[in-house]
């Protein structure tokens, strides 16, 4: 009776701690976002050049347009105006193309980037986990060596190099797959493969390392001794415990996949966020740079927050460790 009671109180205390932790992390997330917007705002303004300075435009015209957009006001007033707009969800209009709002650009480009990113994420998680399990479980030395070798190779090729090699081989030489755009499912194959290669290698290595460690532990050996088959023991017992470190990597990795890869989008001419970002910097399109940075920052921070909460929720130990030492160690 008392034991049950104590367990109940402990659980409640645990839930309360979890709730406090969640709120604290959310507050920190919002704060980071504000700092990010501030820093980027001032960074962008230090950049030499004006968004309206182009060949053949006289300085009077530039000044007039700058005045129209409020760029001649004290920088602090501009900052307050911008942040005020941001709070209302208003990203402002693009300086380069005054007829479009920054929000529209994001609305147009993000689904494109996200669809490629989600596909790459799915491929890398499935492939990485599968190969990782195989490497940890397989008794054949050759299988293990091939998987680790392939992993190291895949991790050694920069994403842009992989993209170019794939492009040269499959669309220039063999002409099997289209080289640019995103019109049909076939268009996705090359960019998704190029994007998924590196994370897949990392995931397979993390999975197999963690799984090997779990497979030496007493509970796994007990399950095997009980007569459970190797694969069943791995899937029902070991994998669950081994997957936490993997999850810790997948979170931030998915954030970067979802916000797009500048290089992949430029090589395969995909009209996504990364390309808009590079374009906005070359054009000194202040509002677009800011809007895209804040948006990408928000996605990254939200995904990292979700990963942390998921990890803490999955493992009470992590929750405790977080509270005690905030032992967060990842890129």
């Amino acid at each position, binding site marked *: 009776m008392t034991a049950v009671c104590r367990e109940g109180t402990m659980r409640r205390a645990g839930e309360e701690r979890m709730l406090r932790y969640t709120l604290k992390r959310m507050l*920190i997330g919002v*704060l*980071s976002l504000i*700092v*990010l917007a501030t*820093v*980027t705002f001032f*960074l962008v303004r*230090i*950049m*030499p*050049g004006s968004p309206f300075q182009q060949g053949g435009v006289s300085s009077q015209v530039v000044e007039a347009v700058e005045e129209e957009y409020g760029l001649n006001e004290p920088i602090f007033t501009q900052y307050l105006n911008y942040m005020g707009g941001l709070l209302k969800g208003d990203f402002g209009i693009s300086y380069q193309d005054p007829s479009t709002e920054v929000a529209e650009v994001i609305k147009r480009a993000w689904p494109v980037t996200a669809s490629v990113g989600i596909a790459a994420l799915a491929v890398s998680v499935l492939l990485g986990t599968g190969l990782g399990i195989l490497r940890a479980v397989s008794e054949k030395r050759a299988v293990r060596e091939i998987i680790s070798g392939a992993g*190291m*190779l895949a*991790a*050694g*090729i*920069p*994403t*842009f*190099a992989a993209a*170019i*090699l794939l492009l*040269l081989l499959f669309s*220039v030489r063999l002409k099997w797959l289209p080289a640019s755009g995103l019109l049909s499912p076939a268009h996705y194959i090359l960019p998704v493969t190029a994007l998924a290669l590196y994370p897949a*290698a*990392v995931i397979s*290595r*993390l999975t197999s*390392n963690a799984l090997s460690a779990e497979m030496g532990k007493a509970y796994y050996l007990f399950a095997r001794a009980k007569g459970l088959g190797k694969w069943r023991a791995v899937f029902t017992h070991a994998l669950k415990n081994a997957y936490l470190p993997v999850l810790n*990597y997948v979170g931030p990795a998915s954030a970067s996949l979802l*916000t797009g890869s*500048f*290089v992949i989008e*430029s090589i395969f001419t995909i009209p996504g966020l990364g390309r808009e*970002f*590079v374009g906005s*910097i070359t054009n000194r399109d202040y509002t677009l*740079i800011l809007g895209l*940075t804040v948006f*990408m*920052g928000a996605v*990254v*921070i939200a995904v990292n927050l979700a990963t942390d909460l998921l990890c803490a929720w999955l493992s009470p130990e992590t929750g405790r460790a977080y509270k005690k*030492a*905030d*032992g*967060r*160690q*990842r*890129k």
Partner: protein
Amino acid sequence: MRGRAGRIWKKYTGGSKMAAAGCAILALWIILAIAVPLFGPWSWSEQNAEIRNQTSSLAHWFGTDRFGRDLFARVWYGAGLSLFIGIVSALINGGIGVMYGAVCGYAGGKTDMLLMRAADIISSIPSMLYVILITLVMGAGAGSIILGLCVAGWISMARIVRGEIIRLKEADYACAARMEGIPPLRILVRHLLPNAAGPILVNLIFLVPQAVFTEAFLSFLGVGIAAPAASLGTIIQEARSQMILYPYQMIWPLLVLCVMILALNMIGTAVEEKTGGRRGWSE
């Protein structure tokens, strides 16, 4: 292998073949990167309109590019520059990261919380922005790209060192040192950090290929090293406009780059496995 160097080699690599192979490739790469531009018959920057876009021959082993520059000389010059940028920025990032992480981990409490949140915020800003900004203000070149790489590159090291210090500072020998009244800085430098040497070394080795990676990527986008200097990323970028006609111009530098990163990863992985240090290229 004998002596102190031999002992250190054994301690951190376990005498593994992978580490030896990695070091051999890396040494070869460094020798070529120094020797070819210095003693080779061709200049990496001299243009010659008569020998444009030639494929590999006895005179020009990697062929020539569209300005008639010898690609063999160019690629090795670029490899040297890439490696230089990688090593210098890894050392700077490693230094900053160790100091920052050690202070955070040892101080703990509010200091730790504030410093680590600041690091979180810095790491959440896309690094492209800093690098472009710095290259615009300082002019494109190795200096600005190293500076750009160092704005956020130290954070992974800081996190690892901080974790290690938090783990180690409650150890008996650290408590004993504190009770003896040894000042905190001395405890950190003489007692705690040497015990964290494994993970620090692993991370330091892996910082090099990461930096080489990022530099190549930035130069490829056209915001890194500017002409006439060339890193591997720049050479690949230059070959891009005619990659359908002359793919070899892109494949040679790509190959040199990939083997270089592979060698660095091999060394790192061997040290990682031996010291039980964590997260190499797998993070």
